[in-house]
């Protein structure tokens, strides 16, 4: 990258930052909207959580709880950022032009490859090979689309592209635990990244992005490293891609298609081990839909409710016979 490109880049960044500063109030309104828009999702998850707890489904509860905690973390991070900016009444001061130039010059000290595309006004760095817990993801190109900086949205201005993709078995779009469709979910890095870009600290921006790639967050990846190469069926042990597993609502484990069925009563997905055959109608039902008849047979909820068991047939017949007026003393049936 020559000096002409460096000055061109610095120019674009500087003017983008000025445009961004002018829009700061609008952006704050947008941030409020963005913050508040997370609430319906959190409310929905909390209702699912309470329902799972009420129905005593620990496996389902754990799964939903993980999602809820991640929503809480994102909300907390975003609200903290909003509070910090609001309480300080701080309008971030754009960096001086020469500071931006120095940042761009020093990118080459941190990254072996730094490139600029005039056509797309994109500055890119290439990281070293990223390895997390023994899984090699290869190098990544981090692209910063300069003309989108004023939009103040990381998903609009940044791409993270795997140069030699080693995607998850279940999803070719997930090239890193925190990268999907060339977009990184920045998590704890969101606030530092935004502050860096809003103050023209391009060097810090790329260094922070690279460190996110070098960090594994096991509580909130698109695909966990344990499941990067697939998930083991709890029953037969076959490796299955995550999108092809079936979750048993009874025992809370994951199974392959062959080891999974569904309850013909409540239609929940259950594994073959969690289903029982109704001794009345022969349907396969889950443990929650099986009941004990008075006669001791295991029958489904529907058969019990509708008194379908054989033992009730005999009772019903006896009741039907009893309804005919009994012969009274002194009287006799007279046949026609």
């Amino acid at each position, binding site marked *: 990258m020559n000096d002409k490109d460096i000055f061109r880049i610095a120019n674009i960044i500087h003017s983008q930052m000025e445009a961004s500063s002018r829009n700061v109030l609008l952006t704050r309104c947008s941030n409020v909207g963005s913050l508040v828009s997370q609430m319906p999702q959190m409310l929905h998850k909390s209702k699912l959580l309470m329902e799972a707890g009420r129905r005593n489904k620990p496996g389902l509860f754990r799964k939903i709880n993980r999602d809820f905690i*991640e929503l809480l*973390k*994102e909300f907390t991070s975003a609200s*903290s*950022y909003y509070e*910090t900016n609001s309480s300080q009444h701080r309008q971030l001061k754009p960096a001086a032009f020469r500071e931006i130039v*120095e*940042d761009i010059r*020093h990118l080459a*000290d941190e990254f072996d490859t730094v490139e600029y595309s005039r056509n797309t006004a994109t500055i890119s760095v290439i990281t070293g090979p990223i390895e997390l817990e023994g899984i090699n993801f290869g190098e990544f190109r981090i692209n910063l689309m300069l003309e989108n900086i004023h939009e103040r949205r990381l998903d609009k201005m940044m791409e993270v592209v795997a140069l030699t993709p080693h995607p998850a078995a279940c999803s070719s779009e997930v090239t890193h*635990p*925190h*990268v*999907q469709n060339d*977009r*990184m*979910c*920045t*998590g*704890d*890095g969101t*606030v*530092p990244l935004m*502050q*860096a870009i809003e*103050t023209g*600290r391009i*060097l*810090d921006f790329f*260094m*922070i992005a690279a*460190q*996110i*790639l*070098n*960090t594994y*967050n096991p509580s*909130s*990846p*698109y695909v966990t490293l344990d499941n990067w190469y697939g998930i083991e069926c709890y029953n037969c042990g076959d490796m299955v891609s995550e999108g092809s597993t079936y979750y048993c609502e009874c025992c809370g484990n994951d199974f392959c298609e062959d080891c999974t069925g569904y309850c013909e009563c409540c239609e929940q997905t259950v594994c073959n081990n969690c289903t029982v055959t109704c001794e009345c109608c022969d349907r396969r039902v889950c443990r929650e839909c099986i009941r004990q008849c008075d006669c001791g047979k295991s029958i489904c909820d529907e058969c019990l409710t509708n008194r379908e068991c054989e033992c009730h047939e005999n009772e019903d017949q006896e009741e039907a016979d009893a309804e005919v007026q009994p012969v009274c003393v002194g009287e006799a049936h007279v046949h026609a």
Partner: protein
Amino acid sequence: MKIFYLNNAGCGFADNVEIQPGTTVGEFFKSRHKNDEPSNYLIRVNRQPVSADYILQDGDRLTATPLKIEGAAA
């Protein structure tokens, strides 16, 4: 004397800080982060990597970027 200190952790910190002449990078970091280690950060002075025993100069720009920054899934 003053340095400009910039911390890229969490909500961040960026401001001028008064320090005593002769303060090293390691000493400064420890004074600000008693429960953390410089080895958990990428520390740059004037955009250059430095050792912990580098003696800070008036007007230096010190940045600290955590090595571990956790991403998420959207």
